[in-house]
Structure formats: structure tokens, C-alpha cells
């Protein structure tokens, strides 16, 4: 299995893009993964589902702008070098 570092970078970009395109109100709320369903009680520990929803929401918020830049660079490189 010849994995290169380039394949890893490609995988990371694709995964992050996939998380970034999940729309908050059209999709996530419909299947019960919206932002307001993530915040459980404040007493106990969050639990796996709440942590996952938190992770999705924070990835979308943080990576939105850098993904624009990274995707543009990727598009230019792929156009130039195939």
C-alpha cells in the first residue's frame, strides 16, 4: 500500500470539505444533529454525541475561511499540473 504524504493531505482536504458542506438548518437539524441539540445539561459530562456535534460545529466555524484559500490553491495546482 503505497501511501504518500500527498495522499494524506488530499484526504485531509476532502474530509474537511465534506464536514464544511453540511448545512446547519437544512440538514443537520432535520436529522437531529443541530447545534441546539448538542448542548445537553450543564451538570454532567457531555457524552459522545454532544462532543461530535460540537466538533462538527467548531470545524465548520474555524475552517471556513482557510478552506477557501486551500481549495483555491488546490484548484490552481490541479489545473496547472494535472
Amino acid at each position, binding site marked *: 500500500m*503505497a*501511501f*504518500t*504524504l500527498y495522499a*494524506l493531505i488530499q484526504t485531509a482536504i476532502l474530509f474537511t470539505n465534506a464536514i464544511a458542506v453540511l448545512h446547519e438548518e437544512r440538514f443537520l437539524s432535520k436529522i437531529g444533529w443541530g447545534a441546539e441539540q448538542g448542548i445537553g445539561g450543564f451538570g454532567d*459530562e*457531555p457524552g*459522545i454525541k454532544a*462532543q461530535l456535534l460540537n*466538533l462538527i460545529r467548531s470545524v465548520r466555524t474555524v475552517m471556513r475561511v482557510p478552506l477557501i484559500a486551500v481549495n483555491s490553491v488546490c484548484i490552481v495546482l490541479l489545473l496547472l499540473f494535472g
Partner: protein
Amino acid sequence: MEYPNQSGFRQQAGVRMRGTPGDPRDPSLLFDDTSAGGDKHDLSGVGKGPGVCPGQALISDPMSNLALAYGSSLASHGREMMDKNLDRFIPISKLKYYFAVDTVYVGKKLGLLVFPYMHDNWEVIYQQDTPVAPRFDINAPDLYIPVMGFITYILVAGLALGTQNRFSPEILGIQASSALVWLIIEVLAVLLSLYLVTVNTDLTTIDLVAFSGYKYVGMIVGVIAGLLFGRMGYHLSLLWCCVSTFVFTIRTLRLKILSEAAAEGRLVRGAKNQLRMYLTMAIAAAQPVFMYWLTFHLVR
């Protein structure tokens, strides 16, 4: 036009001084031996120079003096800027802790990786809230064995492929980057699962890299046994190393991930501890899977 003549005269004198140790009558010297001249220049800068002429040549030429001082200040400035910036990205001082090992530690740790069944006390010794250096505590993680194991694995893989006439220099690079990618994927997966289960642990990322790197020792033993004894030797030794790596990982991570009571062996009810136990077992079970995945194509 007195000045250029004077400096030219002094430079010629300097050249003659530089040439003398090399014996200008010696035909084997193809060019001037400037190293002695360079030494003489430095000496005359620091202490009493051996002759008057080189010292005068340096001092009388203020441009070279200025250039020397400017160059050295630029070099030191660049170096301290690089140190400061590098320390922001890669914590060098923290890395030094993981390489503070000695031969006795490495020997004992390698023995522990292959035979962890007799060892009782798996706790890490602390000293005022910071862990003790690996040199003094066999249970502390280090990065020396994983790094050396990784490099040795690449070399042994090249050797194994060479005995089957499948070797080419690019293969080494492909193996290295492939193993590195799997290591990164494994560390990221462990980090993600630790985050999801909300474990309050003091395991840093470098600790996880160290624990993931310990499996290279078992892989190397398996591949070498496979080279010496054929497929049967490979399967037997890999089985042994997989089981011992599994036990080693469980016993080491149990203390870090589980809560105090569960780590001591008492049965603690509760979904949280059960989840953490499953997580520890999953991390430990991933080790033999990787060990087999990364080596089975090397032994035919």
C-alpha cells in the same frame, strides 16, 4: 593614490606570509594554502599574532574589518531569530525530555516490549508534578526507541525486499512515507477518540507518537525472523510480538486513561469506565493489526 598602493603592498606581503608555510618552491601545492593565513588572521584578532604583517593587513583595511563585524552580527541575529521562531512550532525543550535516555533504559525497555509479563509496577514516577526523565524511570515514554525503530524498520524492509529481488532505491522512500502516513493516521484517530470520550488525561501528542512507535520493535523482530527462518518463523515471532505489544499497550495506557480505582483492578461500575476500557482495548488491538499490515508484504 597612496592608499591603494599601500594596501596592495601590504596584501602582497600578506600573500607572501601565507605562502611561506606552504613552501612556494613545493610543486605539489596547486594553489595558495589560505587556511594558515586565515588562522593567522583570527589569531591576530584574538591574541598576539605570530607576525606583524598579517595583523597590520587586517587592521589597516577597515572595510574588511567592518564586513567581518557586520557579517558575524547578521549571523548571530539570524540564528537567534530562527531559534525563537522554531521554538514556537516545535517545542524543542519538551522534545529533549523524550531523548534523555541511556543504554540501560533502552535495554530494559526493549526487553519489556518483548516480554512484559513479569513487570509489576507500571506507574510513572513523578517529581513535583513533572514526570521524571526516562533515564530514571523505565515506565516513562521516550522517543528514542520509536525513531530508531522506524529507521531500522525502513532498512530492514529494504533488506527483505532486496532478498526477493524487488528492491529499487525508490522503494525505501515509498516504505518510509507509507509507514509515516499510517503513524499519523493512527495518532490522529487516537486523539479524536480521546476527545470524543472526554478523557481527562495528561497524555500529550508526543506521548501518543511514542506509544504508537513502540510497535516497530515487534515488526523488526518479526521481519528478521522471517528472513532467517522463513514464513513459519515470521508468523510465530510476529504472533509473539503482537501479543506482547498488546499486553504492554494495555498495561501502560490503562493507568493513563482509566480512573484511579479502575486502574488498580477493582471493578468499577459505570458506563464511563466501561467506555474508557473499550477505548484502551481498541487502541491496543490496533497495534497488532498495523504490525501485520505493514510487514506481511515483506515476507513471501
